């Protein structure tokens, strides 16, 4: 016990010099709170991991997302506050009801944070959401998160009417033309936080991102793409959106983008998906963060 205290002190001092006193103090408090709840790792072990650069969310195992508390597991991308902000805004914008339900498709769903928050906030029986991801880890985590949020993650039998919102995570690759075969388009809402970091920026990322989170969730340049602007996935998504029957009149597309990408993505949506009615949302840090299009 004694050595623990000394170790914690030393590690904490290290954390203070790497994060600043205020942040380090808060993170220590959150680690202690997690310890009280779980008992598994020890405080020195947690501090040691944090000091080596591991994201706090992987160490604690959860992250808040709106009113939800979602599981976080390496290497699946940790939900960001920017995504939380625009998802809450999107949820506020629409009011589906069990009589006028909405179908949601979330591409590159990761932890499932976007569709889960929508399912949580909208009235029971008003929302049926699908989440696609290329990573088996992400799909497993998304299903675990659905269970954690008490949202069913399998197709309800067609005999029973929907009394709950449903979120179904599915393994799939956006490059596969048949990826939506088993789903039921058209979709009322298509959301995505696709990988958008250009290769040259990826190389400069902080350790906590680059060394711990899935490159496949971050790198916006596909190996075979000519352009290295981080926009490969927006071009892919636009092709999908152009497919007949994907959208109906009034459907909404909301795509998160990286800094300085909003204008280019707006252009891609207008030109290759034919969505003329677009607008851009800023995040709370005043960065253009979401391109919104209406079919």
């Amino acid at each position, binding site marked *: 016990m004694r050595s623990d205290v000394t170790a914690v002190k030393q590690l904490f001092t290290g954390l203070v010099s790497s994060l600043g006193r205020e942040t380090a103090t808060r993170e220590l408090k959150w680690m202690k709170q997690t310890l009280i709840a779980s008992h598994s790792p020890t405080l020195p072990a947690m501090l040691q991991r944090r000091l080596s650069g591991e994201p706090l*969310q992987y160490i604690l195992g959860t992250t808040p997302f709106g009113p939800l508390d979602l599981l976080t597991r390496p290497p699946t991308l940790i939900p960001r506050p920017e995504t939380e902000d625009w998802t809450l805004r999107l949820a506020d914008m629409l009011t589906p009801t069990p009589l006028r339900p909405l179908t949601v498709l979330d591409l590159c769903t990761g932890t499932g944070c976007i569709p889960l928050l929508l399912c949580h906030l909208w009235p029971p029986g008003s929302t049926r959401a699908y989440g696609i991801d290329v990573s088996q880890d992400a799909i497993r985590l998304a299903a675990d998160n659905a269970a954690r949020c008490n949202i069913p993650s399998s197709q309800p039998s067609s005999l029973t009417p929907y009394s709950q919102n449903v979120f179904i995570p599915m393994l799939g690759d956006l490059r596969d033309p048949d990826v939506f075969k088993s789903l039921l388009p058209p979709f009322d809402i298509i959301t995505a936080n696709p990988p958008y970091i250009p290769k040259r920026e990826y190389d400069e990322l902080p350790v*906590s991102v680059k060394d711990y989170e899935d490159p496949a969730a971050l790198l916006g340049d596909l190996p075979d793409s000519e352009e290295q602007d981080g926009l490969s996935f927006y071009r892919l998504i636009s092709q999908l959106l152009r497919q007949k029957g994907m959208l109906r009149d009034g459907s909404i597309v909301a795509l998160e983008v990286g800094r300085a990408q909003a204008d280019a993505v707006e252009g891609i949506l207008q030109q290759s998906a034919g969505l003329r009615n677009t607008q851009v949302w800023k995040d709370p*840090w005043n960065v253009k963060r979401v391109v919104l299009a209406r079919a």
Partner: protein
Amino acid sequence: MSSPEDITRARQLKELEPLHEAWSNWTHARQSLEETLPLMQDPDPTMRTLASEEFTSLTHTLSTHISTTFPSLLVPPSSTRDLHALLELKAGVGGSEAALFLLDLLRVYVRYAGSVGWRTSIIQSSETESGGMRDAILEIKGEGAYDALRWESGVHRVQRVPATESSGRTHTSTVAVIVLPLSEDAESVSGNDELFKMEDVKVEVMRARGAGGQHVNKTESAVRLTHTPTGITVSMQDERSQHQNKRRAFQVLRARLMDVKLSQDIANRRATRRNLVRTADRSEKIRTYNYAQDRVTDHRIGLSLMNLTSFLEGDGVQDFLDALRRNWQEEIMEDVVGESE
């Protein structure tokens, strides 16, 4: 099923209960007294003694009703009786010693709330390296918490030899306490009610995140609200969730605005009536905790408790809260009597 009318009626009934109880006790005692009087002339000496004892006890009951029970019914029911409370504590002069004393005071309020059956949670705190707290906000959920604790607002002064002081010299440090009213729906993030308009509140997230988004996975959940008309600002960063910090910040903002509104109501009333409730000046020193003399003194009512430990570790705070409530009721009673003259 209870309609709003039913609830209002039930509340009225509940409010009339003390009046009804006082009156039936009074009539019952008077009736007994009338029955006792003839027995005091009874030929049997035992009976006479019993009757005489009964007479003394009943006379006492009746005079208590006249001197205390009936006048206290003149105090109108408090308009803030349902409210919960937020306690804001800030270390004043005295550096780390003040921060340590803040923690002592915080424990007193947490334990007191627990003994009454109220739920508490520390929604904001900044700990110092010496193990104290520079400031803290304590949420106390329970009906009547605000009414019971509101007199704790003011500067609390401690005189003691700090644990850190080797020369044994007595230090004087202070902690400022502000008790704010908290309503049930205070956590709502939407505005546009009697307290504020949403367009008057500027919501800011703290610190730049650079590129933000996928580029950064640092936890940045701090939120600051500014209420433009009053200039009140609230910062919250204790929760990992920005959403939660925002809810908490709105809760504190609402409590502060309601506090401003209540103070204005009192000031307005004071302008028309005689000087009613004591000054709401929070910079005033209200209480001294003197360790050398093992004494707590409330300067407003001149009450001293000669057992500091019972205040810090026991239920001594109750004595002060009771005395302050009585003092306040007496002021109101005087005021009501003064008005009718």
